[in-house]
């Protein structure tokens, strides 16, 4: 009826942080199981190809695939177990995770848990963002890299942050006609931070290579623009973009219309903290790290002993930071269990983590979502896609009932649908904070309730209680 997995260390998430953690911990002898919801390991960064796809020569693949291949090979060689299509949906006792795998209920028992659940995209909200053809940049990249599919014929890419560049490159490689990139910030806002790039030549080089790819493909980048609205009847037909001021507010009379069938828009990422919340970890609000994040010490252990975090869940910071943190968390967890870990190894992981976090923080600061973005969401704009709740309904409830997003949720049903507030949660928090005049982070957050993602009633009924 239900299966049980036992391990020294359970790693949740098979992206860069989770795989690095598994490789490090299994490498020193720990018994590691990696639990990941997707059919292929690699997470949203490596986006490995489906196993059913024919790949005559893997060495010819893009370097994200080959890097992912190499890390996966290390994980396997170290003896860690990869459990794909495995959703961690609950935890009802310390060290025990409730999971569902391909329709089967299961329990994972371990002595340490490393949460490397990553992030999801911070949505850009505007009229028409629910039209088919409007998607997140990461979603479009998944189609391009994992599915080998261009998500549309004429594509506009909008939002903010350096992540738009690799997405653009992937879309071009997939054969899409990328008709323009609209970045909300302006390079003159970056200048004051430029000195902090000193010594990070590999990252500067990456950025330049993306720019070169865009220039070769003739894709224009327009700065200081935001999406005003998306238009179409059954699916996207037009994108209306506007110039914006430094606060992110649209400037009247600057509309620019692009005929497009696909719009990819997003403002970076939000840490996926559902599991760390459920595990009882303390969280704090870090605007520079993407919002609510689990508090953790310098070696990635959270306020709950034996629960570690690594990568984007610990604050948005990019894949390099994730790799370093995964290694650090894996080594520390293993060391706590008595496995031999050299001090030098730990020291190297710690210093790499600090180096890469520094860059991540810089990026987050420069490309932070601007306050005007939320101020100008019109009352009739949809905010909760699942339950079809508008900004006006949320604001009215906030004004009437104060700064608790959970009661607003009860009144309006925002955040009560299938996605459990993952998509609208950050927007509801921002709108509520603005409506009642308190800082973001001061309005509570949606309660997290198991199952963390939908699970069939039969699978819950099949759960073993021991």
């Amino acid at each position, binding site marked *: 009826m239900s299966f049980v997995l036992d391990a020294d260390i359970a790693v949740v998430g098979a992206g860069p942080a989770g795989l690095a953690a598994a490789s490090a911990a299994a490498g020193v002898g720990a018994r590691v199981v990696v639990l990941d*919801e*997707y*059919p292929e390991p690699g997470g*949203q960064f490596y986006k490995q*190809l*489906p*196993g*059913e*796809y*024919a*790949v*005559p*020569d893997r060495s*010819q*693949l*893009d370097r994200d695939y080959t890097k992912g291949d190499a890390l996966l090979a290390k994980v396997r060689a170290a003896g860690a177990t990869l459990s794909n299509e495995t959703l961690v949906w609950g935890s009802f006792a310390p060290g025990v995770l409730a999971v569902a795998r391909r329709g089967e209920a299961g329990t994972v028992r371990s002595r340490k848990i490393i949460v490397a659940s990553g992030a*999801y*995209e911070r949505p850009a909200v505007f009229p028409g963002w*629910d*039209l*088919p*053809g*409007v*998607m*997140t940049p*990461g*979603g*479009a990249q*998944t*189609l*391009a*890299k994992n*599915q*080998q*599919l*261009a*998500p549309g014929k004429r594509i506009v890419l909008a939002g903010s942050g350096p992540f738009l560049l690799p997405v653009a490159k*992937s879309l071009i*490689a*997939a*054969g899409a006609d990328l008709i323009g990139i609209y970045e909300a910030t302006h390079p003159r806002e970056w200048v004051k931070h430029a000195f902090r790039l000193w010594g990070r030549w590999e990252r500067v080089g990456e950025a330049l290579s993306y720019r070169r790819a865009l220039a070769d493909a003739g894709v224009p980048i327009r700065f200081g623009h935001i999406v005003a609205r998306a238009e179409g009847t*059954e*699916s996207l037909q037009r994108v209306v973009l506007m110039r914006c001021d430094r606060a992110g507010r649209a400037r009247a009379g600057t509309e620019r219309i692009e005929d497009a069938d696909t719009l990819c828009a997003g403002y970076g990422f939000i840490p*996926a903290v559902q599991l760390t919340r459920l595990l009882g970890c303390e969280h704090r609000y870090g605007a520079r790290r993407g919002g609510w994040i689990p508090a953790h010490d310098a070696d990635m252990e959270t306020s709950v002993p034996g629960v570690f975090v690594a990568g984007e869940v610990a604050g948005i910071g990019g894949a390099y930071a994730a790799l370093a943190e995964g290694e650090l968390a894996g080594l520390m967890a293993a060391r706590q269990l008595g496995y031999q870990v050299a001090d030098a190894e730990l020291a190297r992981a710690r210093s790499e983590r600090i180096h890469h976090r520094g860059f991540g923080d810089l990026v987050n600061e420069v490309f932070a979502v601007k306050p005007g973005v939320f101020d100008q969401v019109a009352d009739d704009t949809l905010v909760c*896609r*699942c*339950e*079809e709740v508008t900004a006006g309904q949320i604001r009215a409830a906030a004004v009437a009932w104060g700064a608790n997003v959970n009661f607003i949720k009860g009144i309006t049903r925002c955040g009560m*649908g*299938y*996605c459990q507030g*993952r*998509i609208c949660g950050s927007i509801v928090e921002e709108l509520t904070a603005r409506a009642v005049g308190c800082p973001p982070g001061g309005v509570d957050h949606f309660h997290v309730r198991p199952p963390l*993602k*939908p699970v*069939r009633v039969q699978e819950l009924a099949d759960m073993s209680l021991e």
Partner: protein
Amino acid sequence: MPTDHKIAPGEVVTFWLDGQALQARRGQTLATALFVNGRRTLRRTRNAGKPRGLYCAMGSCFDCIVTVNGKTGVRACMTKVEAGMQVISPAQFKPHGSKT
């Protein structure tokens, strides 16, 4: 159009959308399988009947949910197409007892 001519999805399979036979290739998700068949709208919303398609493509937003072999609330972006799959695109509906 594939990014790299060397990479190709698996063999052709036939599946069904709302009773209509469609073809896709193994390894493709249902979202991809429907997209290559020209179907961007995957469902209509319960209350307003608005069209919805693929949004996050990574299993977070649940906007791409369809009914597969009788199971409701299946994410098209996370489910690989299989031969003979019966896919139903959810429509707007009025719950029981609602005032018109």
